[in-house]
């Protein structure tokens, strides 16, 4: 039996098959066990749970894909679900449209040769990413609060005082505001990833472009940018996974109800609320699992799409 596990013999000369097996177990077992029990098993258990419906008497009845059907079509469930899904999409789009281009622009500037204070800029701009969302969320709540009036003051100094409103408290602006705060916090990550990719481009290539007659901006657009497309793809997929998994910031700023009137509700908060219950409803294990499984499916679809559609085409750009 130990032969089978090791593929027919010890990999080390002089060590018997039995001891080789123990060697492997010693090194691998702890990590694999913890990972399987607390990471993989729960995932499958959740998917499993989503196939069962909790009965009034507390037992669980197999329901096949019934829960999903309920989630997607039964108004009591589907309205909040589609609301959360739609909000999550907006959340993601805002990140893609604001966070990633800003990160790209900052990275492009930081990667300019002979830029002084480069490391200082990088360290300082990355700082918000380090802080917990609790801090970020609350700090911004204070800054945007009409009571303190700081943001109003700033807008007034640039003549845009009329724009000010309690954005966080208004239904139509709450989500965008929170999204922008999230962008503000996490811009550092695409910035650093793209910056590193830009550094990997050989300087000689830019010299060749300069000799070919391109100025700095053109060289960036036509030479550097195509070569970092794989990294931009990576950043996009990371943004996608993170956004559809997000919870912390919205919970910190708006609580589990993600108000006002669920306008800031995304998949993560919906999941939390469903599973744990709140003042409006009891916790529901089955539907909670169902929502979690849906999130998993959505993320999986996104990752698969990325791997098959985009990753394949990215091969073109490797050195």
């Amino acid at each position, binding site marked *: 039996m130990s032969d089978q596990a090791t593929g027919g013999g010890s990999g080390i000369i002089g060590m018997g098959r039995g001891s080789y097996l123990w*060697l492997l177990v010693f090194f691998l077992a702890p990590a694999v066990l913890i*990972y399987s029990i*607390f*990471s993989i*098993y729960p995932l499958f258990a959740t998917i499993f749970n989503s196939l069962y419906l909790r009965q009034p008497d507390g037992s669980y009845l197999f329901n096949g894909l019934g829960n999903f059907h309920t989630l997607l079509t039964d108004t009591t469930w589907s309205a909040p679900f589609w609301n959360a899904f739609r909000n999550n999409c907006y959340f993601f789009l805002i990140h893609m449209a604001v966070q990633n281009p800003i990160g790209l622009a900052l990275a492009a500037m930081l990667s300019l040769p002979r830029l002084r204070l480069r490391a200082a800029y990088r360290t*300082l701009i990355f700082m918000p990413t380090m802080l917990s969302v609790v801090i970020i969320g609350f*700090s911004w709540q204070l*800054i945007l609060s009409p009571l303190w*009036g700081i943001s109003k003051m700033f807008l007034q100094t640039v003549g845009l005082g009329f724009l000010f409103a309690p954005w966080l408290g208004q239904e139509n602006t709450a989500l965008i505001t929170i999204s922008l705060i999230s962008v503000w916090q996490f811009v550092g990550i695409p910035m650093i990833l793209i910056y590193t990719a830009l550094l990997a481009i050989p300087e000689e290539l830019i010299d060749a472009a300069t000799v070919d007659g391109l100025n700095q901006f053109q060289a960036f657009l036509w030479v550097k940018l195509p070569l970092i497309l794989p990294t931009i793809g990576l950043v996009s997929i990371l943004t996608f996974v993170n956004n559809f998994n997000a919870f912390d910031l919205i919970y910190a700023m708006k609580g589990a109800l993600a108000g006002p009137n669920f306008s800031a509700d995304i998949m993560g908060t919906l999941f939390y609320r469903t599973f744990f219950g709140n003042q409006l409803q009891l916790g529901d294990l089955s539907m909670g699992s169902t929502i979690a499984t849906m999130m998993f499916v959505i993320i999986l679809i996104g990752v698969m799409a990325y791997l098959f559609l985009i990753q394949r085409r990215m091969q073109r750009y490797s050195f």
Partner: protein
Amino acid sequence: MRKPASTFVVHVILILYTILALFPIILVIMNSFKARKAIFGSPLALPTPSTFSLIGYDKVFGDNSIVSYYINSITVTGSTIFFTLLLGAMAAWALTEYKFRWNTLLTLFLAIGIMVPIRLGSVAIIQLIVQMNLINTLTALILVYTAQNLPLSIFILSEFIAQIPKDLREAARCDGLSEYNIFFFIVLPLIRPAMATVAVFTMIPVWNDLWFPLLLAPTGGKQTITLGIQQFLGQYITDWNAVLAALSTAIIPVLILYIIFSRQLIRGLTSGAVK
């Protein structure tokens, strides 16, 4: 060849953005040291001797639980880092060095964890923790965070271990060291830089996480500092001094750690992403 004008513009943009990035933080810390009137009266001013006040901090630290929250966070983060590094290095070593049938499969199995968010299994995790009678303990957090960070840790450490010259390991074998000795006395010391990187990379998300402390250890004095601050903020929401002080208390240690370790952190972030 480069026009000084364009360099100037670049610096202006970078400085403006840096101010944008730092401003909220500075504002909060600055105002946490001011009396309530000054916070509202002159929010942008630095604390002066007349406006200086520690009243917020009194409230934050008055209730001794803040200190215990810090200790909880340190325990959880520290232990997670320890186990992630140790178990991760061991697994990375075995997967890189030893040939056996399930090697590739196991590697793929562990790689899944990098992409799949562990939070989605929270329902089952809670059930598991409850069954194991570990609800409201730090142990639960440590186990979950370790599981969450192992895949990436194994991946990064594997890359590093693969770079150790084969000759070194073979010389050690010729010298008569057992495989276990080789790991603990030769390999581990050599991958210290990578381990430092993984440590820093793991530290921040674990310290800052809100989700799992909320789910697994929300009461009974086992809160982490992140959760504790969140609860405190919820409680004292109208007391601006206390709130600002609490935020600053949470910010400053992280800031200090960050400034010390920023280089490793950025290196870790980039090596983890290149896959």
